[in-house]
């Protein structure tokens, strides 16, 4: 078994993506949400909501709790983990991330898969 190759893309400088903020970016044709959590950790998730593909970066966000509410239908996600809070059990796809020389890189696995989860609901 061979490990999946990861293709790294530089997306933002840390001077653009401040702590407590998020931005969205297209990486290799895929919409990605990149969040700089309070405390310094950087995470990257699928950029569209698993419900109806509304852009998550259009939503509301509480930097203290790291909770994001999708603007479409108020679905809630914990951006520390990508886990769905309401509805529970609907998790965002998480991309690998690294920060080198004040630059954020998002990794795209070269696995031929779609890098987002869908959770249709009412």
């Amino acid at each position, binding site marked *: 078994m061979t490990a999946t190759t990861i293709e790294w893309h530089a997306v933002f400088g840390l001077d653009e993506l401040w702590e407590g903020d998020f931005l969205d970016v297209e990486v290799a044709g895929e919409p990605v949400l990149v969040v700089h959590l309070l405390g310094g950790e950087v995470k990257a998730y699928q950029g*569209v909501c698993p419900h109806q593909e*509304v852009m998550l970066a*259009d*939503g509301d966000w509480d930097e203290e709790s790291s909770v994001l509410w999708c603007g*479409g239908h108020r679905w809630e996600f914990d951006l520390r983990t990508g886990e769905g809070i*309401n*509805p529970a059990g609907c998790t965002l796809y998480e991309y690998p991330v690294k920060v080198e020389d004040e630059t954020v890189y998002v990794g795209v696995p070269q696995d031929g898969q779609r890098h987002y989860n869908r959770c249709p*609901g*009412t």
Partner: protein
Amino acid sequence: MATHRVALPSGEEFSVAPGERILAAARRAGVWLPFECGWGSCGTCKATLVEGEVELLFPEAPAIKPRDARRRRILTCQTTPITDVVLKPTTVSSSPPEPLAVEDRVGTVVANLDLGPGLRRLEVELDRPVRYRAGQYAIVEPAPGLRRCYSMATPPGSGVAEIAFVYRRYPGRPGSSALWALRPGDPLPLELPYGAMWIRDDEPTGVVLVAGGTGVSPILAMVGDLAARGVTGTVHVVYGARRVEELVCADDLVEGLAALPRGRITLVVEDPPPGWSGPVGTVVDALEPDPDLRYYVAGPPPMVDAVLAHLDDGGVGLDRIAYDSFG
């Protein structure tokens, strides 16, 4: 003022007349951009402005967020171009999403009937049948520039040419006052259907339909639709208003539910008359959350917010709830 061109990275182009909304102009040109609510509440229609300048026609739109300007995100449903623009939407299609095949129509008012204090039923005839889902709404324009959302109270069947809306007059507010002033024979421009709060064909175990005030309008359509389809699962309507006189059309609901094996209704009022034996309070006080059921909630924003919080506390996930809040 001139007509401007909108170009998309995918190659489509269309013209927008002065003051015309980008989303509507695209639709009229057969280009379907993402949308859902049609008036600036949901944000589904946001697109990235790549080049050019635009004017926002409804700066109070709830979906506008502080970070939009930085990301050059615009609400296509409430924005008109003031130069030629290049716009990047998330998706583009040559056909409408299934329950949102919006059309422009001009209806004729048939009746504007009193139902209760400050409450009326507006009946509108269309030149040909329209298709929608029970629970959806129209954006009506009772006077030039006044665009307002009203949910159809009539079940859609397989297409109907006469539709009705139950609405409240809010004194001093131009939209509902203009609707109140309509007389039989008056023309009424409308766009329909809009909205995501519609009854699915495959309701598995049952539904709870929650109406606050004139939120009863889409619930009437839903009950009529479920009755016509003869569904066998639970259909529980919870309908609340401040006073009994404001619980308009309750008889229509009772009649529709009587045709269903597991239909029932709970009426709740905040200010009960002498001898009232039902629950007292708001719809929240009469609602037992059940995570196995699906919830459809319609009413003024504070009531809808309270119901959503109550359902969340009761373990009902947002994937089992659809709602519309107007008023």
